[in-house]
């Protein structure tokens, strides 16, 4: 890939002085640990929603499409709206993984895995709607071009709805392959860390026997690039074809040529909004703030600004050309004065406010770096993009060319139930993923650690660009090597003897740990102690809350002199106080 030099002006993409080992530990932590209570709560809610949606689907199929709120004029509404909404959301993943890869954007590496997962889960939801809408889903295979004796008549190749079948299935398969290819080295990492033979076996299968040899990596990089090249036109083609559904067949005699690029931009816009929604939660829950930094969030907001700007220009163009064309019918379409003041004024304004006005706040740097505000905006955009599709279908159809057939649409509980069900299904899949998959592409993140990690950038700032990024290792225990590596990077260094003496002093006041009689506590429960710090404490011989609780200023200083990673951290967080509470609980 690109040369390793990176301008000092660029903000680090990995913070928290991470080493290679830290990355492995941090990424594996959610998989190796146990789910907490909030995960179970959210999962249960999602599961209930999913089951409710499943019930509605079964009801629809066993009774008929009549259970939806459709009528003769508005003969499709929520189904196509939801379908396009989900397909659109499914766009960001492949964009991040493919297009940003081609543009050599390093910040994609913190977020691509989850964005791709989101893509696949969203496309699965999207695919449900056409199948349900068929009414007889057991004949779904009729959309495939198979000879007449196996199905009905030869499929109608003139219909964009059929093109969707091919576009979306191609997109899903390529995205899946792309996603899984990236996962191979990461699954292998989990496999190699696994403690039980069962986990080892499972992750061994998932990683396709990844060996980590140079040959593996070389093939890996080649195939990634080829898939990126294939996926990029696919990103464009899928939503182009989805846009043809609307551009060619909503109201006869009405169409708009800007639809293909405008829909692609809109899809990326909504997809990134959904990535924001998911990642803002995930980085907090899974302690990934060092990998999905505020810079990542800001960059995603910039993509939202760009694609939102393109969508805005498309809206203005639609509106203007509607007037310019001089055709009276244009005043009944979804972006017109007629729509803004007609019975569906609320849907029109929901679209304008959510997609056009609210994202404008992201022009302010302070706001687009505000996590809470970003989260709110991302949800608003998702609502707005749902309304965009709703408006195109329902507003356009509600006043077609025959005033006698004008009507309104009101959804039934089944329409709403199926939509909620897909949201539930989506979150069920995503939550399961978050507990079993490496949610950060750790192999790729490691590849940029030396160019974009904050510790390395600081080192170069202090010692010049040409300073070596490695140090010769002379420790004994393997854990110690890691410790030393970080230590050596800082300018002050203690001799081995000094250190040993300090450790002895420290342990004499804290008491030693005897593995035969005592059990080790989970030191990570102390706020300020992560998996890495825990290991460092272990390597010094500190295993219990009892030991930590005895720390005073003197011990803190000693600790800092041995592990000078976060000077003053232990004292500031009052580890001793925390530990004495923990040991009694």
């Amino acid at each position: 890939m690109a040369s390793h030099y990176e301008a000092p002006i660029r903000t680090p993409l990995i913070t928290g002085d991470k080493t290679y080992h830290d990355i492995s530990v941090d990424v594996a932590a959610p998989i190796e640990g146990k789910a907490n209570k909030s995960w179970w709560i959210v999962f249960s809610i999602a599961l209930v929603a999913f089951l409710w949606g499943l019930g509605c689907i079964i009801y629809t199929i066993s009774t008929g499409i009549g259970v939806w709120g459709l009528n003769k004029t508005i003969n499709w509404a929520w189904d196509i709206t939801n379908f396009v909404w989900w397909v659109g959301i499914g766009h960001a993943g492949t964009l991040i993984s493919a297009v940003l890869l081609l543009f050599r954007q390093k910040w994609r590496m913190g977020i691509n895995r989850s964005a791709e997962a989101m893509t696949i889960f969203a496309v699965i939801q999207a695919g449900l709607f056409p199948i349900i809408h068929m009414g007889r889903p057991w004949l779904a295979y009729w959309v495939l071009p198979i000879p007449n004796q196996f199905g009905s008549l030869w499929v109608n190749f003139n219909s964009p709805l059929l093109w969707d079948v091919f576009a979306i299935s191609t997109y899903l398969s390529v995205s899946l392959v792309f996603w899984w290819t990236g996962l191979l080295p990461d699954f292998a990492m989990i496999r190699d860390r696994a403690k039980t033979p069962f986990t080892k076996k499972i992750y061994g299968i998932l990683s396709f026997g990844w060996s980590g040899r140079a040959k593996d990596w070389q093939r890996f990089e080649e195939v990634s690039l080829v898939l990126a090249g294939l996926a990029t036109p696919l990103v464009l083609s899928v939503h182009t074809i989805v846009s043809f559904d609307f551009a060619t067949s909503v109201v006869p005699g009405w169409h708009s040529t800007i639809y293909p690029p405008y829909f692609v931009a809109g899809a990326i816009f909504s997809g990134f909004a959904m990535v924001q929604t998911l990642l803002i939660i995930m980085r907090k829950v899974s302690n990934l703030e060092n990998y999905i930094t505020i810079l990542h969030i800001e960059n995603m907001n910039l993509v939202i600004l760009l694609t939102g700007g393109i969508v805005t220009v498309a809206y203005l163009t639609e509106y203007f050309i509607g007037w310019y064309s001089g055709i009276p019918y244009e005043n009944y379409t979804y972006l017109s004065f007629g729509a803004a003041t007609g019975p569906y004024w609320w849907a029109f304004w929901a679209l304008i406010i959510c997609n056009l006005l609210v994202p404008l706040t992201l022009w302010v740097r302070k706001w687009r770096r505000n996590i809470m505000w970003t989260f709110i905006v991302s949800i608003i955009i998702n609502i707005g993009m749902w309304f965009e599709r709703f408006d195109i279908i329902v507003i356009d159809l509600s006043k077609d060319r025959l005033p006698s057939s004008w009507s309104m649409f009101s959804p039934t509980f089944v329409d709403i139930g199926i939509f909620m069900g897909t949201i539930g299904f989506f979150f069920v899949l995503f939550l399961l993923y978050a507990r079993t998959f490496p949610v950060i592409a750790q192999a790729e993140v490691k590849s940029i650690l030396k160019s974009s990690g904050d510790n390395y950038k600081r080192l170069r700032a202090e010692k010049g660009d040409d300073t070596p990024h490695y140090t010769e290792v002379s420790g004994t225990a393997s854990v110690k090597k890691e410790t030393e590596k970080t230590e050596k990077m800082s300018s002050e260094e203690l001799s081995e003897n000094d250190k040993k003496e300090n450790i002895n002093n420290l342990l004499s006041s804290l008491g030693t740990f005897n593995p035969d009689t005592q059990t080790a506590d989970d030191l990570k429960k102390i706020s300020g102690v992560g998996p890495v710090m825990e290991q460092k404490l272990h390597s010094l011989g500190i295993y219990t809350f009892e030991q930590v609780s005895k720390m005073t200023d003197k011990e803190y200083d000693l600790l800092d002199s041995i592990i000078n990673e976060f000077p003053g951290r232990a004292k500031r967080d009052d580890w001793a106080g925390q530990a004495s509470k923990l040991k009694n609980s």
Partner: protein
Amino acid sequence: MYTLPGKLKLLAIVFMVIGAIGIASGFLNTPSNTEEVKELLASHSEDGHGNATAVHEETKESHNQVGVEESHENEHLKHALHAYQNRPWSAFYVAAFFFFMLSLGTLVFYAIQYAAQAGWSPVLFRVMEGISAYLPIGSIIIFAFLIASAMGLNHLFHWMDPDLVNPESEHFDEIIFGKSGWLNTPFFLIRIAIYLGVWNLFGYILRKNSIKGDTSDNLTWFKKNFKMSVGFLAFFIVTETIMAWDWFMSLDPHWYSTLYGWYVFATMIVSAITVIALVTITLKSQGFLEFVNDSHIHDLAKYMFGFSIFWTYLWFAQFMLIWYADIPEEATYFVTRIDDYKLLFFGMLVTNFVFPFLVLMNSDFKRVNWFVVLAGVVILVGHYIDVYLLVMPTTVGEHWYIGIPELGAVLFFLGLFIFVVFNALTKAPLLQKNSPFIKESKHFHY
């Protein structure tokens, strides 16, 4: 510092002189009345060109009433006369816009580099500045041309005819009347003056800050350019669409397509990037731009490849949707182009898509200079044809021909473009000194 090679200067001047002669002869040879048109059509049908008279013969047979035939014939000749009179103007307009859009597209690409904080391209910034130096003169020529059109010196912009919006007149056109809030000469010229003015002002400031940066010890200039670029791009994305409506879509005032503005943009950006690559390779071959390596050329070629596909995508999207709906008032745009310009219309898909797609597909070829030049020249020819097809079918119709007026105009503007661009390159060192990303760009290998 770069100095303008004498040969190049001479070449540019020769182009301009020959081109000017071509343009002038185009105007002088225009028929001034219907009699001359008659002769011209007759001579053309002998040459095998212009089957207009043949078609006319057929219609003659089907009409038996002599009076109708007479007026029909006159009508037809008048129409042909207008087309012939429009031709040198159109040829001039096409070439003027083509070279104008090269510099405007380059300025946009340059602004994108700042806005995206690109690390690969800073060694090419001075080249981009040089190419965008043509923007002021290009704008002035286009604006002067549009003023001349507004004054009635030519009839390219049909809607400027006051009869069309006069309800008393027999030529009253209700559709154009409905658009007169937008399509009226004063507003037309005012908005064009505004967006041309802002684009030029931006180009000027960007260049000024960039030069200032060479002697500056802080990054204020860079931050300014970053902010300016973002603002410019936001302004541009809106005004570019308006430009496309004003300058090309309004030639055919009944017709409309929402995609049109972006389609013109695609042509602009792919041609501009091609020119950046060509100028870079030229300078490199003269021994300048020591820090530009084949990775930079590779990236430019990737953009040429990518935007060629992007152009095709938009071409197809617009064509497919209009063809599929087949609504007469929309389909007319493609009907004229396919009936009268079949070779150019479909040929341009070969030059703009098939050829660059095949030649630039292989990643090793994108690093070979002559391959890039070969693909680049074909792309530029193809996009000249594209601009030609934006204008000619509505102004000249079936009476088109690529001859002295067209080639003369292209030569003249090519000479002017070379002269202005390479002259601008001599004005400043070819490498920005203090850009924060310059080292990244110098070390750019992959």
